[in-house]
């Protein structure tokens, strides 16, 4: 008897679990599978459109481009969304039709890699050169390595003596000229 009531309890619980799952699944059914297909909203269309650029109107994202060509493209996105296509499928379709240049973000392949590599490299190089420059500025003068070998003390004295001798001669000559 006890065994039977346990079995009944488990059967009831299983039924409850299954029915709960069914209700949840019905609530979470995507709109594409509804009996009446829902038309995508402008926001949904623009979410895809802003990732695309029409080659006719360069530098204007598709979601804000006012030309007839771009309007047609947005209409096409709406059709594809209504047909159940996801964002990636739509972007792939546009790339196949019109080329990579319609994408706002270039795909990371071939020479496009440069777009992703060069800016960080340039920033890193800039930081490195700034670091080098600031380090050099901070270094006290007595720690700087002498780039040119300093003349020996004796040589400097000899030079100073010759210099002063030359000055004396010039002053004497100037004085003589003034007297005459």
């Amino acid at each position: 008897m006890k065994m039977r009531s346990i079995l009944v309890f488990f059967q009831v619980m299983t039924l409850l679990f299954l029915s709960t799952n069914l209700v949840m699944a019905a609530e979470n059914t995507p709109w594409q599978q509804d009996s009446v297909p829902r038309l995508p909203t402008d926001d949904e269309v623009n979410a895809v459109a802003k990732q695309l650029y029409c080659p006719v109107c360069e530098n204007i994202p598709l979601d804000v481009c006012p030309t007839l060509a771009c309007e047609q493209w947005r209409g096409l996105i709406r059709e594809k969304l209504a047909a159940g296509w996801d964002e990636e499928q739509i972007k792939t379709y546009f790339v196949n039709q019109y080329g990579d240049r319609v994408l706002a973000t270039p795909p990371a392949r071939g020479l496009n890699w440069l777009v992703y590599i060069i800016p960080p490299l340039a920033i890193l190089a800039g930081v490195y050169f700034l670091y080098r420059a600031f380090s050099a500025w901070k270094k006290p003068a007595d720690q700087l390595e002498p780039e040119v070998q300093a003349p020996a003390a004796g040589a400097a004295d000899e030079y100073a003596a010759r210099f002063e001798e030359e000055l004396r001669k010039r002053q004497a000559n100037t004085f003589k000229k003034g007297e005459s």
Partner: protein
Amino acid sequence: MTSDPAETTNLTQATPPRFRWGRILAWLGLAVLLAMLAMGLVNTQRGPVLVGQDAPDFVLSTFDGQEIDTQDLQGKVIVVNFWASWCKPCEQEAADLEAAWQDYAPGQQVVFLGVDYVDTEPEALGYLQKFNITYPNGPDLRTRISQAYRTSGVPETYFIDRQGKLAYVQIGPFRSLAQIKGIIEPLLAQ
């Protein structure tokens, strides 16, 4: 008093010039980058294909599923018209182009090809139906054909002679059927 020459030599030997790979690589990278930029600039500044030059070959996948390779059309005069359904000036010449095609189709010496530039297929098909256009038309997939011809917009029409050389370029719409025929006739006579 002079400095000891032996000491100076020792100092020089103590700091040999280092072979700086990092610096060389940086300059090399910069040179490559500048070369690529220069090539890109040259490409963009090349302008359209000039009359007398070899016309670029291409394969047109038409809306009705044909594959037309211009290499297979050598010996014929080819008229390549770039258009789009959103292009209002294209509508001005659509009827004249179709009329010209109807005139030359029986002789099979002139081939008309319509290249639909940056367009959506439903609208393009609607345009072809609206103007009863019957010559082969297809999309410019990945804009390869317009890039090969370096077009500046639509409508543009390129006339290729029997030798595969570009013979005439019409930028903008044709004014009349007579104008189109006036360009084709001398090419047929060659």
